[in-house]
């Protein structure tokens, strides 16, 4: 099953700010290059772009959770 991994260690965010909607909702389809979240590393923010395509997006990490580089953020069908 395709997985989206974090390219960096840091804090994972599902939206660009607390007041904006999530980049992707659970169950969404994802194309290669779609932004699915942000990683904050030492106060700088980096977009997480999917390198895989699929449907039925399921996040396995919660918003604002700490992640290590290579950690699985989400899975697709």
């Amino acid at each position, binding site marked *: 099953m395709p997985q989206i991994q974090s390219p960096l260690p840091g804090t994972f965010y599902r939206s660009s700010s607390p007041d904006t909607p999530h980049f992707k909702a659970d169950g969404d389809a994802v194309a290669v290059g779609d932004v699915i979240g942000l990683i904050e590393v*030492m106060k700088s923010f980096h977009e997480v772009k999917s390198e895989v395509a699929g449907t039925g997006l399921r996040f396995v990490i919660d918003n604002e959770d700490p992640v290590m580089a290579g950690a699985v953020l989400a899975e697709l069908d």
Partner: protein
Amino acid sequence: MLQKLLVANRGEIAVRVIRAARDLGIATVAVYSDADRDALHVQLADEAVHIGPPAAKKSYLNIANILKAAAETGADSVHPGYGFLAENAGFSDAVTAAGLVFVGPSGDAIRLMGDKVAARSAAHAAGVPVVPGSAGRIEGIAAARHVLTLTGFPVMIKAAAGGGGRGIRIATDLAEFEAAFPQAQAEALAAFGDGGLYMEKLIPRARHIEVQVLGDGVNAVHCFERECSLQRRRQKVWEEAPSRALSDRLRDQLCNSAVALARAVKYSGAGTVEYLYDDAADRFYFIEMNTRIQVEHPVTEMVTGIDLVAEMLRIAGGEPLRLRQSDITVTGHAIEVRINAEDPSRDFAPFPGTVGALRLPGGPGVRFDSMLYPGCVVPPFYDSLLGKLIVHAETREAALVRLQRALSELSIEGIKTTKPLFQALANDRHVMAGDFHTRWLEGWLERHASRLTPELEA
């Protein structure tokens, strides 16, 4: 006198505050997140309390958890360090309401200086020169057009609730201004929940010079100035004291104006009054007052011999100012550089990781304030400052040589750092001549950044 101090911070500043407290015989309580269990400040404090997960919002910014840690350990006081909750008026109020001493100014003083328009008005009222601009918040574009007669172009449109370089627009002519003003209003409302704006003349080539003050709520003294003109994206990377740009006459005026402001607002604790200095016009203008200890405080300590953090703790403990203005003098020259976990050759990309072997600089006139020890983890969740290298010598020229010497001794294996930036800057002819302004470094980096590759030692 304070008996037990909780340090509501992490990293090098938590270490710095713990050291000052221990020097005064004050017991210390560290707080830490999951990511900092083995951090140096946790090791050095008498006690340490876990306050939450790695995300700062859930730990170092979590007021309820910090106050709970203070209550559980019987702390009688809280030092906020810098960053995190240091300039949060609500935190100062909450600490005081819990019956504890906040090592810093009152919530009201933080609020006054945190509102850029109110701070500017307070400075103006105290006789401190302010950058030509609006007297306060601007009500509508008609009033804004009138302010242009004072400022001319280029002009900065700033959000009253902004700060740290955020919420600023620049217009170079009337057409740009007419378009930018309503946009700035909408942006300020969206970003800060407050559409209030003010305007200031843009001084394109200015130095950043700031004055350290200490106040006890009645009296105030200054500890002379620091120059922090070498900045990247409005973040200081290199600071020194004294500034070689100032004449003695202007230095007196500048420092005395900072004291006047501190007295006018009945300031208590350590604070910094920041100015722009326009070399060409030989004039200085108030920018803002920071109501906390600053990252670059050690350069002032090196040239005055005053332990600023210890003075903060004494003032918070209820002592009147120990130092009279005539007791405070400057000896020699000090330079501080910020060693960050960043790769300067790759647009300062952050570089968290684990430190391997570590060799720290030492010897005469060298100080290294840091959170590092061999094998320590540099987590990705907080800012990238690893430590500050500070050198002191009789003259600026000798301090630059000593900086080179100390940088060559510094070796941090396993982490890319900004050390190559400072090795190059200390050898640059403009830096050696003190010939720079706040935008100078960004231009220099466009030409030189690619060769500032850190060696990554295994």
